[in-house]
Each structure stands twice: as C-alpha cells, then as structure tokens.
C-alpha cells in the first residue's frame, strides 16, 4: 500500500476529531492511461472503487468485474497486476498492468451517498411525512 503524501502523518494521541478518507465520485470515469504514473494512479483508484469496472486488454478482450486486489509496487508495469472477480463467472483473474489498454468505471459505485448524514436527512423527511418503520433497505441483488 502506498500512503498518499497529501495525507498528514498521524498524530493520533492529539487528535480531537478523526479525519476520514475523502471518497471521490468515480462512477463513469475513463482514466487516461498514457503514462506510467497515470496507470498506477488509475489502478489504485480502481482497487478502491466499490463497483464493477471494465478492463480492456491490448488483445481487444473486455473483462467486466470487481477489482479486489492489486500489486502496485512492482518496479515495472509488467511486475504489477490487478486481480479481478469477473461479473459473469465465479473465478479470479490476474492481469498484468502491461496487458491493459483501457479501464472504465462502468459499474454503480455501491458506496456512493451512503453517509450517516444522508440517513439522518432521509429519516427526518420520512418522519415529517408521517411514515413509520423508517429504515434504509439493503440494495437489491439484481445485476446492473
């Protein structure tokens, strides 16, 4: 794991409030993969993304699935790889970065908008509308 330089080093015993991670809105993003830095950055974000992505290989094959692991520490792109659970089969695939032509954040970001503040807002809206048994339902398991 690389620790982003932009984050302050922890001073945990002095902190009154705990700063959290800022989650970017990446749904629909097609990152540029022109330079090695762009590739490494994009694949790190792909690993953090809570939805499916579409990986296009240099041989033209497209793989849609969830990126659950990556090795971003290799000295060259040939030494780095993504690990994907494809959407259409129970399997785990390893793909070297060097074989990837394009990446797209095509699936729904399943973490987006699920903050406690959003729940509080929703609760009071429903309460004001006179509803009872208010709650957030789990996402449906139908495929996007």
């Amino acid at each position: 794991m690389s620790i982003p330089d932009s984050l302050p080093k922890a001073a945990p015993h002095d902190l009154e409030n705990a700063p959290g991670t800022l989650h970017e809105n990446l749904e629909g993003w097609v990152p540029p993969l022109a330079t090695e830095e762009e590739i490494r950055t994009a694949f790190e974000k792909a690993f953090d993304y809570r939805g499916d992505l579409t990986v296009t290989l240099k041989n033209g094959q497209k793989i849609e699935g969830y990126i659950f692991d990556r090795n971003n520490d290799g000295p060259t792109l040939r030494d780095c790889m993504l690990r994907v659970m494809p959407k259409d089969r129970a399997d785990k695939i390893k793909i070297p970065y060097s074989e990837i032509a394009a990446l797209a954040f095509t699936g729904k970001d399943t973490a987006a908008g699920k903050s406690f503040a959003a729940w509080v807002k929703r609760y009071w809206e429903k309460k004001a509308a006179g509803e009872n048994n208010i709650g957030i339902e789990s996402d449906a398991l139908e495929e996007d």
Partner: protein
Amino acid sequence: MGVPVSQMWTVASYVIGQKLRGRKQYPVVLMLEPLFRCNLACAGCGKIQYPAHILKTDLTPEQCFAAVEECGAPLVSIPGGEPLMHPQIAEIVEGLVARKKYVYLCTNGLLLKEKIDQFKPSKYFSFVVHMDGQREHHDFAVCREGTYDKAVDGIREALQRGFRLTTNTTLFDGADAKSVREFFDDMMELGVEGMMLSPGYTYDKAPDQDHFLSKKKTRRLFRQILSNRREKWCFNMSPLFLEYLMGRREYRCTPWGMPTYNIFGWQKPCYLLQDGYADTFEELLRDTNWERYGTESGNPKCANCMVHSGYEASAVNDTFGSLGGFAATVRATLFDKYPDPDVDDDTPMAPRRSSGPLVQIGAAPDA
C-alpha cells in the same frame, strides 16, 4: 454464566504453546466472513458495499473448514454480511464445532428466531448479537426502526433454548455514556453471558467518514463508560483490552492475531483495512508489510484505530507474555470496578466536541 473454563483453558494453553514454540506472529481468532450480503444497510458499515455478483457469492463449507484448518486459531468469529443469510451456515457451524473450535456467530438478530432451529446449543458455540445501545440509539445506528425489538426477541428465544449468547456494541462519535451504561444493565438483565465493545473508527471502506471516534475521544468515552462498573456487568473480552480502551495502557497493533478470510482470500492486513489479499495464510504472514500498519506506523489510515481486531490479540499476548502481564490480568479480573471519582456516571456526558450532531430518534435535529 460466563465464558466456559474449557474455553479459557483452550486459549491459554494455545497461546502458551505458541510462545514456547517461539512464534512471534500467531492467530488467536479467525474472522471468517462467509458472505458480504446483509439484511441491514448501516451507514457505519463498510463491509457490504459491493456489486450484486459479489454479494451473491458465498464461501462453501469446505472453503470455511480449509481456512480454519490452515489458520489454526482456537476461536472462530463469523461476521459478514449477515451470516444467518448464508444457506449453509448451520453446516458451517456444525463442522467447526466438530473440530472443537469455539465459534462466535455474529448476527444482527433479525433472523435469529426464524433460523434458530437449525442450530444446537453447545459450549463451543455462541451467538453474538449486534446491539449498538438502547432502543433508539440502536435503531438509529443501524438505520432501521424496529431492529432493537426484533433482536431482543431473538436473544430471549436463544437464551430460553440454552444457547450461549453475548452482545457486541460499536460506539460512534456522539455516544451517550449514561445511556450505554443503562444498556449494559438491560442486556445483563436479559441474561446474556457477556458483552463485547468496540469503538467505531474511520476505516476507509466505510461510506460514512464523519461519525467515528478519534483515539482521544475513544479513551474519554470508554473511561466514562467503564469506570465505576456495576456489579452485574460481564464483558466477554480481554480485561487488559478494556483497560487499553480506557487509556490505562498502550499496545502496538498485532493484526495477525485476528486474521480475516473471505471470498477474496486472506485479507491484508486486518479485518477492517482491505489492502489486498493473499491466497494462503502463510503467504499473508510472509508477504504483508506489517510495519506499514498500526497507529505507531504513522499510517494515517490506522491513526484512529483502537479496534479489537488490531489490539485485543495484543492484550491477550500481553497476558501470557510476561509475569507482569499475567499479574495485571489477574488484578483486572479480581478488581474490575475501576472506581474513578472524576467520572460522574449518573449524568449524561455530552461529547465535548462532536464532529457531528448527536441525533436520536424522537428528538429533532438542530439544523
């Protein structure tokens, strides 16, 4: 009631055995996640945000047994997702009990009454019902009204049938210490074996990042909650870990003490951070760069963590690691009231600077 002597003996002899063999990194509890699906959608949980095809994937009983054998930990905790939604959960529990593992099945309790016929009481098996406080606090924390009452119904049913049962409580920024103490009374009156506690922290997979506790707030809150303890309270946790939460001692993170296995493999480095996966437990121990994790590493992702998965195994290791640690555990067990005249346990402790408003059902928010 309480933790069976056989369980204490099993853990003690296991840890001492590891130490005699000179193992520096050994697991105490396997966190076995057989699925990520859940019938709740709590904002504080980062365990369930996956595409549908991932949520529909389960570990098989054989995969679970193989992971347990590979890891070797004497205790197995089964979180999730909601484990009672796994179609073969009873088979998994039965297989682990047959292997003489002490199994803690973590559940929100919503399906407990419906599924309880599938299980048999055993000293090796305990339900752990997630309860985040008194009714209004719990329902608000898990983002659904009515959840507390259903869980309590399930608890009553399980206890009446002779099952071991503990509760597990996660406390977030803005928690009301007085209410938490009353909640402990309520749970002990229900007849639970013991209670587990954990501070919520800002692990980066959690979709909500604004309602977790800093270390400073965690220590202040747990000192408030756990000082001047009432006679009837019983905690199913390491007493030294509770002292750590109260700020009475310091530990280094030992995430290998509670490794996590799920459909992706062995999770690096711990139960809450997901920094990749190893295919075998040996690979997890060998290839994870452990120096990068824990508060002491300076990793900002670990800065606020005081969670059991990183630090309770450290406390257990301390108990059996030195005469001083053992003596401290005996002392903490025998003298567990922690009188503290500076802590007023009869009045609610308002958070001094909550990073978010304390909001409860039944009271309109200020904004």
